[in-house]
């Protein structure tokens, strides 16, 4: 399965918006290349806080002769994420991963809509180079409440320039791009004739539900990266389940986090 528990060091941190930042971790030794959509569970090494590790989707991964570089994006939502903003550089960090099921990059074809809301950008940004290598065309829908909360716009523009994608921005208040919720903007464009083979999305659950609904109405496949509270990230605590179509549950940490929207029983969510 390629899951490992390793010690890394906090190598760099950069503020992205007023409440989000990126982390770069230096991994010494072997670590399997994560598939876009896979995640890691991390916590500062040796400490007792927070009690659980926290799950973060991989935003980038590079290797050199001695090890790897792991990029993550963090939105400050509470004390545990705030602590990552204060943690001194070079602090040892326990990293467990790569975990879960990622996006089906190997089967991607044609034209994709990549839909990111909130702090949902990391797995999609990380997927783009692989999609470009396969000749898959992409439109990235980037949504936020307001212009100052748009995460990663600079990096997305660079990716669009190098791999021929398009970026469509929407803000709830209209302060950047189109006004409105991102799934509404997406459907408006589909109505206007945009054709997509698949919708790949990551973001808040309400947005994912709306994307799933667009996919259902338009008969388009949708691959959603879900987020849930997790104690273990390994499939054994059963704390992160979502109801499965046809009964039972799917574990966000094992069957997901990327799950085909049609496999979820939305009526029981």
């Amino acid at each position, binding site marked *: *399965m390629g*899951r490992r528990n390793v010690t890394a060091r906090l190598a760099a941190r950069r503020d992205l918006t007023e409440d989000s930042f990126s982390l770069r971790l230096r991994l010494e030794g072997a670590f399997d290349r994560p598939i876009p959509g896979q995640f890691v569970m991390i916590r500062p090494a040796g400490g*007792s806080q927070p009690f659980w590790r926290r799950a973060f989707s991989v935003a980038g991964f590079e290797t050199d002769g001695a090890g790897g570089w792991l990029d993550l994006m963090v939105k400050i939502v509470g004390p545990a994420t705030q602590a990552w903003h204060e943690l001194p550089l070079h602090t040892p960090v326990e990293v467990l991963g790569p975990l879960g099921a990622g996006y089906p990059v190997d089967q991607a074809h044609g034209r994709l809509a990549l839909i990111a809301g909130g702090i949902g950008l990391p797995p999609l940004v990380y997927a783009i180079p692989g999609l470009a290598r396969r000749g898959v065309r992409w439109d990235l829908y980037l949504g936020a409440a307001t212009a100052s909360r748009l995460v990663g716009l600079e990096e997305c523009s660079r990716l669009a320039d190098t791999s021929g994608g398009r970026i469509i921005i929407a803000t709830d208040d209209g302060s950047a791009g189109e006004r409105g919720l991102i799934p509404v903007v997406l459907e408006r464009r589909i109505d206007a004739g945009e054709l997509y083979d698949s919708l790949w999305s990551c973001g808040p659950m309400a947005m994912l539900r709306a994307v799933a609904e667009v996919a259902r109405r338009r008969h388009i496949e949708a691959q959603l990266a879900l987020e849930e509270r997790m*104690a273990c990230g*390994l499939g*054994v605590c059963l704390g992160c*389940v979502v109801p499965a179509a046809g009964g039972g549950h799917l574990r966000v940490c094992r069957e997901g986090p990327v799950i085909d929207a049609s496999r979820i029983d939305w009526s029981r969510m």
Partner: protein
Amino acid sequence: MTTPDLSVTVGGLELANPVLAASGTFGYGLDLDDLCPPERLGGVVTKGLSPKPKAGAPMPRIAETACGMLNAIGLENVGVDAFCRDTLPTLVERGVTVIVNVFGASPAEYRAVIQRCETAGGIAGYELNVSCPNVSSGGMEFGHDPALLEELTRLCRDATRRPLWVKLSPNAPDLVATARAAVAGGADALSLINTIRGMAIDPYRRRPELARTFGGLSGPAVLPIALRMVHEVHRALPAVPLVGLGGIETGLDAVRFMLAGASAVQVGTATFRRPDTMLRIIDELAAYCRKTNTDRAASLTGALEEIS
């Protein structure tokens, strides 16, 4: 000194070392194989199994607390048939010591799980989860009523000759009375403690953190309580083998439980925090034995010295 002997015996069951995976924290035995191979443990207690698959509780099911966590998973499991068919053969082939954790909504359901396992073979023993409401007698938990517990234990005792453990609830009104009842019903050993009922609240949403409102507290927060309970039962019933659990994270924690009277220990929530914790505990236990010139880890059981 030479390598210490970590093997222990719990009510007739021999274990290579005293560290077992606690029920509900290690899947069905193979889920963490890549990070913690089950054959290196003293044994694995499976996720609680019922006669039929069970969907469990609504979300949210877990909450982080100070030095611990709450869970209300609702005993979600694949059912005893799927376990015996899909997982048990591999565990047996690999030489894993498998303790099946058993629960049901009625005494007959407990018995049905054991009977199904008996036909499969290769199981080392059973652990009864009695922190479960008895639907057939008004929802009282089996583990809270000594008479009910004794009857349940006896019914299960009659269904198997393999070692039978009863996992005691710390929420019972009289712990020692339930311990006595389980022994009277034929239990070979007692494991304690199960989680302690607790609650967490989100102050901004003004709602409980768990969909079921209440859940079971585990992790280092409960360790002193668990230790006290193990020692209390050991004092009252010194001849009864005990398996101690509750917040164990290190080899020294395991030693503490053994000194208090446990013959073996289980590790649960610590596995969530770090999946190879049990392997480290085994190493740390061996290191403790070397440092203190303890030839046999089994000699630690009940070796607590009172302050005079």
